[in-house]
């Protein structure tokens, strides 16, 4: 398995032509998908997350034991970075009165009513469950792939998905 440690990077530039070309190809193919993943995970700045994930890959690509695992590395980085951002946000943000919504009204208006309800319910799930649900039902990843992206066991993924679905069903069930 590739080195999927998405922890702090040293910041040391590690670009060479081979790395950059390989990562550039992956970037062309997958960057929009990673932005969308960060968006669905609730990142405040999805492009910032996706760019940082690819930047980490650029720095570490040469040390990946299995270059074919680069996509899994980026996906895991997006998950970790988004999760970290949420934690950081929790620490620095001032508690504001209820009803404070960071999502733009434009975006909300553009969503179908039904989809808005689903996404609102999804946003209420604990972060790990939300991750598992998004990876499963948007990216159609297998339990094994989700486990790698989230850094947990496949059994935990199964638990997150089933409990997440149950929670969604409870919230949305009456409206189904």
């Amino acid at each position, binding site marked *: 398995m590739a080195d999927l440690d*998405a922890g*702090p*990077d*040293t*910041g*040391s530039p*590690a*670009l060479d032509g081979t790395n*950059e070309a390989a990562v550039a190809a992956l*970037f062309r193919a997958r*960057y929009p998908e990673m*932005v*969308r993943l960060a*968006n669905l995970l609730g990142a*405040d*700045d*999805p*492009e*910032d997350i*996706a*760019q*940082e994930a*690819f*930047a980490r890959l*650029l*720095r570490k690509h040469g040390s990946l034991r299995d270059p074919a695992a680069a996509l899994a590395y980026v996906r895991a980085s997006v998950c970790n*970075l988004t999760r*970290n*951002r949420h*934690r*950081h*946000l*929790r*620490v*620095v943000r*001032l*508690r*504001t*009165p*209820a009803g*404070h*919504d*960071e*999502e733009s*009204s434009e975006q909300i208006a553009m*969503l*179908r009513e*039904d*989809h*808005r309800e*689903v996404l609102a319910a*999804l946003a*209420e799930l*604990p972060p790990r469950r939300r991750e598992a*649900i998004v990876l499963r*039902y*948007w990216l159609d990843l297998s339990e094994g792939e989700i486990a790698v992206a989230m850094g947990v066991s496949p059994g935990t993924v199964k638990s997150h998905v089933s409990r997440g679905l149950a*929670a*969604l069903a409870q919230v949305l069930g009456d409206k*189904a």
Partner: protein
Amino acid sequence: MNTIEDRLREALRERAAQSPIDPDAWTRTVARVRRPAKARGWPRIVIPLAAAAAVVAIVVGATVLTGGPHGGSGATGTTPSASPSVAGAPAPPGPGNYLIKSDPPSSAIVPIKLVVGKQTSWTFVWFGRMKTDPGEGIQLCSVTDGGNYYGGGVCASPGLQAQQGYVSGAGSIRLIVSDKQVTSLTAELPNGHSVSGVSALGHGFPEKVWLVNPPTEDNATIVMRNAAGQVVKRLSITGQYPAPSQPRSGGIKLFSYPAHSVTTTAGTLTAYLLNGSLIGVKGKVVGFWGSDSSSMIAGVPASGPPAVENLGGGWVDHGKVAEFFGYAHANVARVVLRLPDGRQYSAQTTAGWPGSGLRLWHFAVPVAAATFEARQQVILGYGTAGQVVFDKLLSADY
């Protein structure tokens, strides 16, 4: 496949399709890697800034930060000396500033003068990374002094900075980053008015930084245009109540916390009883300040429900413990966190402010336990006779 799964797929697909994609994303990604990763001493820089704008007046500033006497390879251990060339400019934050220490600059520190009404403030802006957690990514930092600001600041991701901003009675200073192709930025207000922003581009800035000061409580749409006047990006920001400054008195030191629990650095958490009008709430509210000036303020009157309020439970990367803390009403003698596996963490409440009818509490929980299904964790309040007087599932938002 059931209905919920169908609805999920459709909703996710629709929402995903709404993610804007920056055409210059690759260039920006590569720039992150090629950017100097850490400050190499204190740079010697002169920073030109954009011209003054309609509402926010900006005075072109120049900061000269000379290399420290030690000439080391990092910010630590160097002693910057500042020679602002703009009359009246205060000294930039020095090496002792908590944000300079936590997020050492990898760019110039750019001073920007803001004049709103009769209030003058200076905002110092730089890019850096959290010393203790560089994996958080590039941080946009700012410290503002003068006017209604008292040297407070924050380091956060550029996107978070735009949403959070500094807030005071004079408005909310928003820091927004953009491509260098963006030549104008305005905050469009619900009443049809707009406020122009000003840009700053200093040495080592990966992106252009804009400051704009829309009215504090107004939602606004930030509109960025290129030289041809074409809109290249829109960003919605939500209005905020002013963030109260940490009171100078009346605090009750609640507990000391280790690094990576309440904040990245170790410190002491202090509780204050505040006038709720500061955040748009009737009555008194309880707020907690960490040693790094981060604050957590309950959004509900302390005299009303809930009888037990928890404002903790978070942690920072790689943290080992989560500190749970909050206040409780006078009839609550003990607060307990009960996990679904039966484990419990608890603390006796202690007296709060005389005459307030409030008590305070805190306890630490290993992160491994705190991550246990937030919705199945229960906060209980026990009276002096041991009876349960309050119980509530923890919300998912902590």
